[in-house]
């Protein structure tokens, strides 16, 4: 295990996992691991925020524990819940026994009947894991402040059992799509990293790395096209994931350059909203002109 990764090692690690990086990302990941600070990553959907946590976990050879946030997420889904069915069964079994109420209570409120949810899992893990708190902006503010408490004390109190202290402090990655602004308190607790859509060169590198059999010219055209599409006002701007899907699809079809018909028929891979598709299809010629693709003469 790499307990003291140097900057170069982090860079190598990320590269090895197929993650194309910028220096700022390398530095943030490195410092977050070195200083044992949570890392807050913001950016539009589909730029590889979640990916960083995965890469980090496999680089550190540790487990990735993921807490997906959503509206209405509460402590029972994030921390722990009692296994009620089991508890009831246990009580049934002991119906005839002479145990006192206190003893029964002690049995059913023990480790055996505790369902550990991600946060509790993370702090009771026997090796410091990577804890990914995904899309924190979807959970409500109450959950956010509750999370702050856990992140600062690294202990969780269960009324029936007592306080559980962290055996290892996990490496925390928090991601957000900026659906709502996060509190200043959470920001100050974390190191911050903004990841934007990749520029042309970076995107090209990513396509090459992930789709090795793609035609060189096609890859460039795809990148140019994506860069242009992202400047349009769309409901849902496509991320890297969409670029890769598209590149892989086209490469599988053994295509070596973009064509109008082809783009029109495969636009559904890139854009996931029908108004966007409509908008892009109507301005396709214009787009092609900017990208430098000559449309087929009919």
């Amino acid at each position, binding site marked *: 295990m790499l307990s003291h990764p140097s*900057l170069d090692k982090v860079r190598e690690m990320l590269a090895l996992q197929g993650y194309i990086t910028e*220096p*700022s990302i*390398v*530095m*943030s990941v*490195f*410092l977050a691991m*070195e*200083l044992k*600070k949570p890392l807050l990553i*913001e950016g539009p959907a589909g730029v590889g925020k979640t990916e960083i946590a995965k890469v980090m976990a496999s680089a550190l050879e540790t487990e990735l524990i993921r807490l997906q946030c959503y*509206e*209405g997420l*509460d402590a029972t889904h994030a921390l722990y819940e*009692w296994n*009620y069915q089991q*508890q*009831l069964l*246990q*009580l*049934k079994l*002991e*119906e005839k026994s002479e145990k006192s*109420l206190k003893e*029964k*209570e002690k049995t*059913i409120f023990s480790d055996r009947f505790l369902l550990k949810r991600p946060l509790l899992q993370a702090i009771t893990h026997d090796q410091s894991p990577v804890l990914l708190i995904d899309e924190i902006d979807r959970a*409500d*503010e*109450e959950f956010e402040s509750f999370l702050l408490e856990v992140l600062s004390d690294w202990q969780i109190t269960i009324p029936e059992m007592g306080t559980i202290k962290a055996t290892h402090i996990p490496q925390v990655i928090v991601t957000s799509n*900026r*659906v*709502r*602004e996060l509190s*200043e308190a959470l*920001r*100050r607790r974390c*190191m*911050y*990293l*903004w990841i934007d859509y990749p520029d042309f060169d970076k995107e090209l590198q990513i396509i090459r790395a992930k789709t090795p059999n793609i035609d060189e010219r096609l890859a460039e055209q795809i990148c140019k096209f994506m860069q242009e599409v992202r400047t349009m*006002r769309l409901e849902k701007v496509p991320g890297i994931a969409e670029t890769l899907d598209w590149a892989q699809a086209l490469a599988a079809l053994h295509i070596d350059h973009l064509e109008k018909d082809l783009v029109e028929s495969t636009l559904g891979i890139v854009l996931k909203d029908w*108004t966007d598709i409509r908008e892009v299809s109507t301005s396709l010629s214009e787009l092609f002109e900017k990208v430098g693709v000559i449309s087929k003469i009919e």
Partner: protein
Amino acid sequence: MPKETIKRRTDLSSNLLGFCRYLRSKGFTIGPAEISLMLEALDRIAPFETPEAFKESLAATLCRSRRQQEMFGELYDKYWKELDKAVNSKRIDHPEEKPQPSQSKKPSIQQIKNWLYGNKEEEITDIATYSAQQTLGQRDFASFSEEELGELWRVIQQIARSMAMQANRRWEKTHRQKQIDLRNTVRQNLRRGGELLDIRFRRPKRNRHKLVVICDVSKSMDLYSQFLLQFLYTFQNVDKKIESFIFSTSLQRVTHALKGYQFKESLQRLSQEVNTWSGGTRIGYSLQQFVQGYSRLLNKRTTVIILSDGWDIGDTNILEKSMRKIHGKAGRVIWLNPLAGNPDFKPEVKGMQVSLPFIDIFTSGHNIDSLKALARKLK
């Protein structure tokens, strides 16, 4: 020389502190915690591989938002360049390290200081994560340009969503209905040996208040109405029930049309439709239509929100009568008049005057802040 190194190092850290102070003046939140984190980070990456690594480690530890991360590069370059200049000029002009402010036009320590602390006002406009939203909050919707409106939609949704989330995500105990509260049930029945005799229930906390929104979409009011509806509908996703109507010359119920996926588009289409028969606003007639057709929607748990400037080309008697009826049946009547955002505003329009006695809350709804205030009143 050890002495030399020590001096250098103190120089560096005092320069770093100066840099932090400079960033703070630009709206960065940097306290002792951030500074010690930064120093620790520098310690870890030392000896610095490259100047870039130095810069990046500062950025990684001092930035706390996207805006700050974007501003950082420029501020960094500016600061160290200015510092370099100062150091050079010091060597040439003042070997004694005594600043002689009277003399030189070249940058002196004093000038650096001025530059560091002095010109806050000049640059204060472009700082900080929240100030942008604050100024945005106070601007009249009508003053936004076409391009800015897109951004505004996003901000409004963001604010409304976070307010809506706050409003409504707890469980409450209940005796009727739905989901068993297992935790409570198990605890309660322990003493009966696990026989579930006394079952406890819970359900999501519910706000059973209903909103009826009646919006003026005549030309001058259209924009405000759209923002109000957009804002309120974000709440609806959570729990609140909203019935919505739009009018200019006559009333149209748009609740169902707005339930769809393309909220913004359908709203714009609808308001255009209503406006096609436009010939001035007839608020009295429209409200009368509402009373006649839909007053069964009203009860004491209903809040009625009317957005209009009160201009009416019709008979104000009808308006008065309708308002009296609505006020009598509904729990609360809120009237939003975007013109009231102007400090000199007086409700002198006749339509407004006859309506005033039947209004519980009169406010503006002309910018983000006033919409926020409205949402708080609705809770």
